[in-house]
């Protein structure tokens, strides 16, 4: 009996392995479908950029392990942008002219904007998966977003701050680049339209290390909430604000939903309200799987909600390529755009339903988090 089971097991194991790898093998036989990614893998924003790339790799592997795109393996080509537009232009040209990719995924507002004219001119589809400047909706026929632009979470936050938190006087401080300017303007306009008063509206240099001046300008206006629309310098701004004795409520957007802020600020982060545009692992079991994959990397990733969009943008690419292939069309940027608009509704594993609108915008629920006992705790969800 024992010997019989052993033989069966011995026979069945290779067969099982063969079956599991059949899809992978099929995917490897056909020509690869390639797409480009413009990400900061060096420079100050690389902390996020490298984690985006790692997540794309995980998603591409997952897709290929399941048989690829109609049997074609999916392949990603990543070029570094340092989150700088001038570098992004060269990288986009290389991906389009040399590597001949029909589709590029990008992030960081200035990079998305810099690559947009190239995408429009060469009819290469550009998908934004992490930048939130509202201008992205108006960059041309070949630029779409799968990530909600600032008007989604910043509008929700500004309205919530006024209506639910009862804050009437806001100071708005922002990093002087596309991300900061766009987001800050939306916050100012929405907060004012809701009935509040913006008592200070100040930008600071992206390379600044001393924020005393802008903070004092904000303090003079006697605000009851300070909204900071920054990037990696956000902890320093908050630290200096608290050290100046300013105890007002602080809000920020999704860039603030970062565990590093908690370690750098400690108790000074208490009460900070930030936004997130993706559900947590408690609400979506697929997110737990992503976190499991990151456990193998050996650390908690930077900007988890962004990584959920990174995964999902790869799925969107695969579905676009699948539609083009299924309809017997050549894999060009024009056909990718046609596919995007034909599919229009995507059911995505990490962030749920995505609907591509004609105005190049998308809607998503906004999750508001507050720092409590040095942890991000869900405060409210704004649909």
């Amino acid at each position, binding site marked *: 009996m024992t010997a019989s089971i052993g033989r069966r097991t011995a026979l069945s194991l290779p067969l099982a392995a063969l079956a599991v790898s059949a899809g992978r093998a099929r995917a490897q036989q056909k020509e690869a479908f390639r797409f480009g990614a413009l990400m900061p893998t060096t420079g100050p924003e690389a902390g996020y950029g490298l984690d985006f790339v790692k997540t794309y790799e995980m998603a591409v592997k997952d897709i290929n392990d399941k048989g690829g795109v109609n049997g074609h393996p999916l392949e990603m080509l990543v070029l570094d942008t340092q989150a700088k537009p001038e570098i992004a232009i060269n990288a986009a040209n290389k991906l389009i002219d040399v590597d001949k990719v029909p589709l590029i995924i990008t992030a960081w507002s200035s990079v998305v904007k810099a690559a947009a004219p190239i995408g429009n001119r060469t009819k290469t589809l550009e998908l934004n998966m992490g930048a939130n400047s509202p201008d992205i909706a108006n960059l041309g026929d070949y630029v779409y977003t799968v990530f909600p632009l600032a008007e989604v979470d910043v509008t929700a936050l500004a309205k919530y701050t006024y209506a639910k938190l009862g804050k009437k006087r806001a100071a708005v401080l922002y990093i002087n680049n596309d991300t900061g300017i766009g987001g800050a303007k939306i916050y100012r306009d929405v907060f004012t339209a809701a009935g509040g008063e913006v008592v200070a509206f100040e930008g600071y240099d992206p390379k600044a290390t001393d924020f005393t001046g802008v903070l004092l300008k904000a303090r003079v206006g006697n605000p009851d909430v300070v909204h900071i629309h920054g990037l990696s*310098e956000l902890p320093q701004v908050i630290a200096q604000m608290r050290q100046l004795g300013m105890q007002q409520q602080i809000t920020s957007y999704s860039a603030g939903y970062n565990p590093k802020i908690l370690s*750098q600020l400690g108790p000074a982060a208490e009460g900070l309200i930030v936004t997130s545009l993706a559900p947590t692992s408690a609400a979506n079991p697929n997110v737990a799987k992503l976190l499991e994959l990151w456990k193998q990397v050996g650390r908690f990733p930077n900007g988890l909600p962004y990584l959920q969009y990174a995964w999902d943008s790869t799925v969107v690419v695969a579905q676009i390529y699948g539609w083009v292939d299924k309809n017997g069309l050549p894999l060009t940027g024009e056909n990718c755009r046609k596919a995007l608009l034909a599919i229009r509704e995507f059911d995505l594993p990490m962030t749920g339903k995505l609907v591509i609108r004609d105005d190049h915008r998308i809607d998503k629920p906004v999750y508001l988090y507050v720092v409590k006992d040095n942890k991000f705790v869900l405060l409210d969800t704004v649909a």
Partner: protein
Amino acid sequence: MTDPVILLQILWTGIAMSSYFVLFTVAFALTLKVEKLWNFAQAGLMGIAFYTMFYTLNAVHWPPWLGVGAAVVLTAAVSIAVEVWAIAVLRRRHSSGLIFFIFTLIFSQLVAFVLTLMFGTEPETIFPSVMSPVRIVGGVAMSDWDLQALGVTVVLLAVLYWLIRHTRDGQFMLAVADNDKLAEIYGISAKRAYLLSGIIAAVLICAGVYLYGTRAGVTPDVPIGLVLTAVIATLVGGLGRIFSAAIAAVGLALLQSFSILFIPAKWQALLLYFVLFFALVLFPRGIPVWRIRRAKPLAPIAVAQAGD
């Protein structure tokens, strides 16, 4: 914004924030004076100093004094190595100033690339927390970091002043700075003076990097920007005037801080380059304010000579 407390706060924070600016400027001005070298390699030394502190304190969890000590030793060692195996070689070959300049720039870029490979490019701080306890004095917030920064800077500048004015090595450095060939005829070792100025610069750089890195995030490409600001202060203070350059550094930092009263904060960085532009065009030897102070003691001698 014209409230006295606010003005005092801007003044206090501006002075505190100028501390590392002053230390980097003095380090740069010292090597420029003694070695006649536009030493952009100091950006590389800053990177080495920062990541040594970062690694020893965060990865191997050494106590702060040991981590800082290790940074001083390593940075000084690299400074000596660069002097002995590179700068001295170029000097022996009578290389042009441009070759020195390019070499120091390339050295810094090389260090930045190596540090990028080793530590990545995410902004890091020396300690995990960037918070510092604060006390309010007369309505002005003074953090422990502010006091520490001012204390470290004043002590180091006082020691440097004493070293230059009251020790033989300091006077030998000045002699070499004045005329290295003549100094050597008098038996002064120019090589020793160069090494000493490099070591002093390394100590100043470590102190500056410690102050900067405990307050703001550092990436491998940050130091080259810090050296550029030191260059601006050195040019404004006047070439060859170490302590004038330090005063210029404080002046520029305060100018930037107080500019918030007149211009939007996003233009503050531009102001430095604006000042540099006008300083280079109008006062190529430095702004005269710093020179008048040195010119005064010479007057009686000139009168006496005229009387003779």
